[in-house]
């Protein structure tokens, strides 16, 4: 099951640009939380701070606390451990092209030295089923490469890969923005089903998408969290003028 995320006083920089300012936020467990905001407002930076991917950029810096459940991720553990507990799905599908579908899903476990063949088979099947991809690929599991399926399938494969290591949190940075509407709808349905078991944080430019999948929505602007509230509230009656202006297109 998922765990909640508690963000306190989070600040992040790229070199000398202050990208995130004093973010305070409590993301509820086992729900989907959407993050919206104009381009460059810091959404991606924010989610990347949640699993310490931010620091893989050599010029990046971050301060503040992020607690995933009870774990203070910046103080208690190594990034490797944290990233295993927090799955991430990126904007463009990035399956490993040199691996088969099976190996893609199994890769996270294999990395951790997991060798039990039979258990692996089961986990791969279960993850693919959860990602609503099993039926489409079950006959080519080991024959097809992760790159030889369609974009929408690739993205679901990436989700399956993230699910296979049984994360508590799933971060998604615009997971459907590179996909066509039908694939997008499949991913949304999937998120909708997954959120009972995982804490999901999804960045999206598509406000209807946020509206459709998430219970809570946060609006970022210029590196600040302007408003964080129930999704229906944000989209029908936001409290902050800036949020209202953004979602009604009165912006910029």
């Amino acid at each position: 099951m998922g765990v909640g995320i508690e963000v306190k006083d989070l600040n992040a920089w790229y070199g000398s640009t202050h990208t995130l300012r004093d973010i305070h936020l409590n993301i509820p467990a086992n729900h989907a939380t959407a993050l919206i905001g104009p381009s460059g407002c810091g959404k991606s930076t924010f989610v990347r701070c949640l699993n310490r991917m931010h620091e893989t950029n050599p010029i990046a810096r971050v301060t503040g606390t992020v607690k995933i459940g009870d774990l203070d991720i910046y103080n208690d553990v190594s990034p490797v451990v944290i990233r295993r507990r927090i799955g991430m799905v990126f904007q463009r599908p990035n399956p490993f092209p040199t691996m088969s579908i099976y190996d893609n899903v199994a890769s996270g476990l294999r990395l951790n030295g997991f060798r039990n063949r039979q258990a692996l088979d089961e986990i791969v099947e279960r993850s693919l089923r959860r990602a609503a991809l099993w039926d489409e690929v079950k006959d080519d599991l080991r024959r097809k490469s992760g790159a030889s399926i369609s974009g929408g399938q690739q993205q679901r494969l990436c989700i399956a890969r993230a699910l296979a290591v049984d994360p508590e949190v799933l971060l998604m940075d615009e997971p459907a923005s590179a996909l066509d509407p039908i694939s997008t709808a499949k991913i949304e349905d999937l998120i909708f089903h997954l959120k009972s078991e995982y804490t999901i944080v999804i960045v999206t430019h598509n406000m209807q998408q946020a509206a459709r999948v998430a219970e809570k929505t946060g609006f970022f602007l210029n590196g600040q969290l302007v408003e964080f509230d129930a999704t229906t509230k944000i989209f029908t009656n936001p409290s902050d003028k800036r949020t209202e202006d953004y979602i009604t297109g009165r912006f910029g």
Partner: protein
Amino acid sequence: MTRIRFHQNLDDLKEKLLVMAGMAEQAIQRSIEAYRVRDLSICDLVQRSEPAINRQEREIDQMALDLLAMEQPMAIDLRFILAVIKINADIERVGDQAVNIAGRVRDLQAMPPVDIPVDIPKLASMAASMVRRALQSFIDADANLAESVIAMDDQVDQMNNAIYRTLSKLIHDEPSQTPQALNVLLIARNLERVGDHATNIAEDVIFWVRGADVRHHLRTGS
């Protein structure tokens, strides 16, 4: 783009609207029952049901608003939601009419009983049947049935006018029965308005199903 959840939500919305419609229809029926048997407890019942109907109305409107904001409904779905919003208002007003009727019955009860020679229950059953048919056409997405509802409105109007004339004459003849007659007159008016609302509902159904706005076309006069 199988937006399954969205279409489930639309079904939920319809369901909710039907429940509310059921309540409103019941209220009308009860108010007429109260009129027939002059039973104040039934009036109470009707008047107590109003807050529930009102709550339903707000919930349905909120749900429709949420769906509009969150799901970008298009074409038939969009027309459906708009139809729901309008039908919702009409049903709420049907509920109001029921309360009004109950109020009139209450007033009547406080007066000496007299025999008013108009067939309110018939008018009521006519109006109620219009409501029921309108809702059936909504359930079945049946534009033809909805058209038949609109056709019925003329009958109700005629009946209402007949009642008006009768009562007008009655008052003229028996001034002592004026208060009772006036109340009955207003009840008839209320029922006529129920018929109007049923007509509106039927028009909204046609609009939803066919995408054609038939208001002020089929309707021979409001």
